[in-house]
């Protein structure tokens, strides 16, 4: 929580992106708004958050939050683009951080891999699912399935200070 009197004019520009996962960490984030929405509305400019709004802009941002693993080349390209646009990238949740359970097909035996190959081919999916750190440099990771709330707050508050949205405590 930040007292209103110390707020500065600048907002943290933030993007929230979701790829292959159950979106549990997005739901946790939405639930964290139960306690923090007033602060976040004042401190954060949600540039891209499909779960929250229709008008989304994929442009330069201070922080990109990425949930989910990458299972399709078009998503891989989008992650590369996000890395170029964001000054900092945070991976949240198990699928983004370590690629599981979304990437459990990587661990299938040969017989099961053969069984699903037609779907991989049909939808042009990548042969192996990748975590976010396998594709781009990640500045912070909030692990957990779903992500750990306290750790996420710690990371968010760190960037609010680093981008001079709030003064150092």
């Amino acid at each position, binding site marked *: 929580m930040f007292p209103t009197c110390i707020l500065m004019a600048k907002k943290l520009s933030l993007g929230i992106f979701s790829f292959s996962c*159950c*979106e549990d960490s997005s739901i946790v984030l939405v639930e964290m708004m*139960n306690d923090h929405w007033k602060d976040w*509305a004042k401190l954060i400019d*949600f540039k891209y958050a499909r779960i929250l709004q*229709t008008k989304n802009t994929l442009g330069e941002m201070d922080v990109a939050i990425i949930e989910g693993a990458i299972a399709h080349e078009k998503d891989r390209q989008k992650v590369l683009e996000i890395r170029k646009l964001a000054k900092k990238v945070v991976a949240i949740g198990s699928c983004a951080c370590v690629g599981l*359970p979304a990437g459990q097909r990587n661990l299938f035996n040969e017989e099961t891999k053969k069984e699903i190959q037609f779907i991989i081919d*049909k939808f042009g999916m990548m042969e192996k699912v990748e975590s976010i750190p396998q594709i781009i440099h990640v500045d912070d990771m909030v692990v957990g399935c779903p992500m750990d709330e306290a750790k996420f707050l710690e990371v968010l508050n760190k960037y609010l200070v680093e981008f001079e949205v709030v003064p150092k405590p």
Partner: protein
Amino acid sequence: MHLDFDINLDAISKIEGHAALSLKVRNDEVLDVQFQITEQKRFYSQAVRGKSALNVAQLVSRICGTCSIAHLSCCLEAVENALKIEPTQQTKLLRKLTTYGMYIRDHAMHLYMFSLPDVLRKDSILEIAETSPELVEQCFKIKAAGNNLSKLIAGKAIHATYPEIGGHAQIPDKEAVKKSIAELKSAREEIFDMMQIYHESDFKFERETRYVCTNNDDFSYTGDEIISSTGTPVPKSHYLWHLQRVILPYSTSTGFQFRGKEFMVGSLARMNLKKNSLHKDTKRDASSYIAEFPSKDVYKNNLAQAIETLHSIDHSIELLETTDFRPETPIAPTIKDGIGVAAIEAPRGTLYYHVEIGDLKVKEVDLVIPTAQNQVNIGFDIKQLVETNLHLPKPELEFEIEKLIRAYDPCMSCATHFLKVKWL
């Protein structure tokens, strides 16, 4: 002059998961409506094989974040059914409370964060805060009451940890129960504003379809028979005889028909088919809203969700006030093989699990997801919507399409993961 145009919505917003839509209009005729679920498949149907039947519910909980408690509860029931385990009344009651917490949280998220911006012509809940902060306060207060109820009863609101095969790992602390009752009673006062908003809303899309849900006598999440607007009730174990898969080659999910026709599941179906079993306090205080059902209007799904939120609060308060929770030992399985079926009402509609177990390992799991059942209906509705609104400017028509899709409250994360068909 005849109209020719295409609509391509590649990322529908304010829904759970990823979906897209494409359609063509040629010579005033709507062609090729494709409501596409674009989630990348995660192959749970294969991943569960060989896993311990006693732990598999925790894995399938990861199919969907917001519906995780529905998957957990349905899978537990199917496994118990296969292993001939009959949980105690207290376990059943704790599962009801767990599910009510999910309903309150999940419905409030949809009503306030996804659909209300459409009603108020705002882009998001945060834009609503600029003009109607009291509605935003309500939203987060109600969601918190549901979230905290799930945490209290089930350990966590997402991927709950206490529900287990044959029992419930922990009972709630008495002081925490008192606190939860107070929080629920306070949240109860808020939901009437939302009912009034959706009662007064001029959104309307009426159509003939079939409605399906499971039945019980207290409007809770589980029931033994399937009821519909088209015929006599059938045992839930017969669901595969009445549901037919429909291959949608453009979608990563299959659709379904009920006895050969499109149909709808979810809050509107439940309110149309069994509103008489709502909690007595809900019936007393929301009678004017309940009187709107049965309804053919898809947008009344929102009002139905608001009434279900009130019911979930009322029944939870009664269960918490009248139950003396006592520690119980989970019932261990005495057999190692079997086939079990479960059907529960998830917030978005009926969820079916069919589990085959050998030597306490999972051999096969098949399930039918609510959004997959609604997918064919949604496609027909979009076609009709566009046909009757061809005169609208394209951005307005796109908004109307997204608005209609959001009224269904689809969940794409759920919809894709148990696919058994082969495309030719």
